[in-house]
């Protein structure tokens, strides 16, 4: 990955093409894994976007934010309001959600980026908690409190009225110029957005801007004595990262038009951190991988129960199967979060570079192993000849 900066435009083009192909064919190749249904596919895209955006901040500059859930929530609320006030079309909703969380990120970033390290983490956490608490209390007229913000028949939807789109008797669903954003259509809308934002992230990684961000992570004092005003760099990155989160939040509303405050809870922020670390902070594809894996296993594990485990281990003697099932039962279903916490700890302890580092290590091992084998066979040949 060291020379990733110097990938040629041709290589990048191939990279993007392969990436797009992989994303767009997900409904096909995820079939054997039992993950090819729209709800989960949409989640892969949405949390992938969130993690990619988070990684731009944490992975490149090293600033650990514990407040990204707030941006996610604001994106959702803004998108639902766009559905209510403007139009059921997803485009204004996405734009509105992204811009609103971007504005919020400007305010939060302006304050929080005055401090670094652990102070920054706590400041962002404080802002997220404030947003969460306010969403439940004073801001109920905007957020609809615990019930969550929902669509209703009586919403004005000014733009839709203007263009003469008739209100139907049932509750309307978001759409892209008439194509509903539910099901696989929803997935393809999210996938298109994903490809665009991944491309932007790729450009940032490859540009001098990205290199400067990595330099800030590595040694901020040196940056300042090297002639850089680091604050605007951090600010820009923070806002971009916040907008990615807002975009993800608005896509949540696009695929399921309601917004609740629980999405802003700081455990949700923790989940993003988890995805990024699990996949590999600072790598381009890692966070996406992390998001996918967490959402996939969440889906599988939380659906599991002890009976299914008993079935799976029915080949064992009864008493043994019961024991194994009871033990494993702790980690599935409701115990999914326990598994997640354990895996997360193991990753931080043994593989701080995440899965990408793991893959690299395995790759090296394989190459090394092959190299060694070649070497051995050669020397064997040599000794055979001598004999």
């Amino acid at each position, binding site marked *: 990955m060291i020379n990733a900066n*110097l*990938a040629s435009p041709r290589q990048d083009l191939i990279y993007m093409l392969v990436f797009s192909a992989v994303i767009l064919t997900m409904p096909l190749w995820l079939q054997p894994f039992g993950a090819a249904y729209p709800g989960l596919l949409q989640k892969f895209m949405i949390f992938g976007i969130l993690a990619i955006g988070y990684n731009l901040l944490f992975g490149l500059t090293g600033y650990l934010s514990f407040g990204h859930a707030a941006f996610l929530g604001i994106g959702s609320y803004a998108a639902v309001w766009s559905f209510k006030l403007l139009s059921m079309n997803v485009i204004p909703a996405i734009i509105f959600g992204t811009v609103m969380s971007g504005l919020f990120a400007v305010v939060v970033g302006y304050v929080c980026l005055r401090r670094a390290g652990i102070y920054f983490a706590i400041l962002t956490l404080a802002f997220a908690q404030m947003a969460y608490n306010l969403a439940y209390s004073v801001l109920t007229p905007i957020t609809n409190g615990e019930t969550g913000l929902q669509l209703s028949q009586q919403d004005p939807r000014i733009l839709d009225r203007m263009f003469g789109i008739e209100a139907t008797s049932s509750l309307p669903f978001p759409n892209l110029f008439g194509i509903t954003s539910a099901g696989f259509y929803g997935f393809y809308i999210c996938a298109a957005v994903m490809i665009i934002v991944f491309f932007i992230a790729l450009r940032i990684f490859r540009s001098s801007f990205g290199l400067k961000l990595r330099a800030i992570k590595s*040694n901020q004092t040196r940056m300042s004595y090297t*002639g*850089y005003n680091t604050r605007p760099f951090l600010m820009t990155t923070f806002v971009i990262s916040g907008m990615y989160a807002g975009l993800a939040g608005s896509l949540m509303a696009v695929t399921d038009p309601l917004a609740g405050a629980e999405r802003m809870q700081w455990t949700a922020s923790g989940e993003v951190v988890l995805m990024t670390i699990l996949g590999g902070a600072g790598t381009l594809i890692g966070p996406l991988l992390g998001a996918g894996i967490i959402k996939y296993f969440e889906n599988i594990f939380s659906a599991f129960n002890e009976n299914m485990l008993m079935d799976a281990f029915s080949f064992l003697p009864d008493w043994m199967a019961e024991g194994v099932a009871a033990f494993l039962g702790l980690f599935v279903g409701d115990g999914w979060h326990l598994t997640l916490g354990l895996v997360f700890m193991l990753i931080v302890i043994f593989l701080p570079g995440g899965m990408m580092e793991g893959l690299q290590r395995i790759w090296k091992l394989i190459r090394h192993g092959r190299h060694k084998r070649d070497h051995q066979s050669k020397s064997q040949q040599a000794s055979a000849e001598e004999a």
Partner: protein
Amino acid sequence: MSKVVLDVSDVDKKFGGLRALSDINLQIEEGTVNAIIGPNGAGKSTLLNVIVGRLPPSRGHVKFNGQELTGKRPYEINQMGVARVFQTPEIFPDLTLLQNAMVPALAKRDGQFNMSILKSLYHEAELREDAEQMLKDLGLIEHKDQLAKSMSRGDKRRLELAMCLVQHPKLVLLDEPTAGMSRHDTNRTIDLLKSIKEQGMTKVIIEHDMHVVFSLADRISVLAQGAIIAQGTPEEVRNDPKVKEAYLGGEQL
């Protein structure tokens, strides 16, 4: 007399009741190599920190090419053409050597902030060649794709020097550039510093090693207890009885 690049006039620096610097006057001429020497605790590092704007002086001015440096931020001072080499190498440990050299070059070209994400580094060939040339000059080119943190201490110092020089600064401030280096590396660094002398770059060196000082400096200022007690050519300073007494303790140079 040629143009004065750095003008330190009547600078005092107090820490609480302690007077770390008193009445410092120092005029550095363009293209010269200036050494500031003095025993430990004489205020050398404080003086350097005042010059680069890290510490505000209690009194007096520091001017660079007629512009006030006092109160400016480190990046502003760097953008004016003042580069600094630290006592303990300040590099980007998680970047490769080539990247380490490219970041300062980019600062020189792009200024203190710009956000161009459209141009890939792949297309920055000219800049990369500059950086590679500088690494070559300092004998680091064969390591250019290695991470800086994996280098030896001496290599790190040379890398930091490369990072300064790649910006082609008007003035370089070097804080003990050979501290912790082997004799071999020290000589190599001296040769290197000599070779860039011809390029008309002004240098201020803080140094303990007399060998380095006398083989490089055109002018030497001697600091003792926060004041300059002698100033002049190496020859003048060497024969100054005050210096012998205060700093060299009568030792023969």
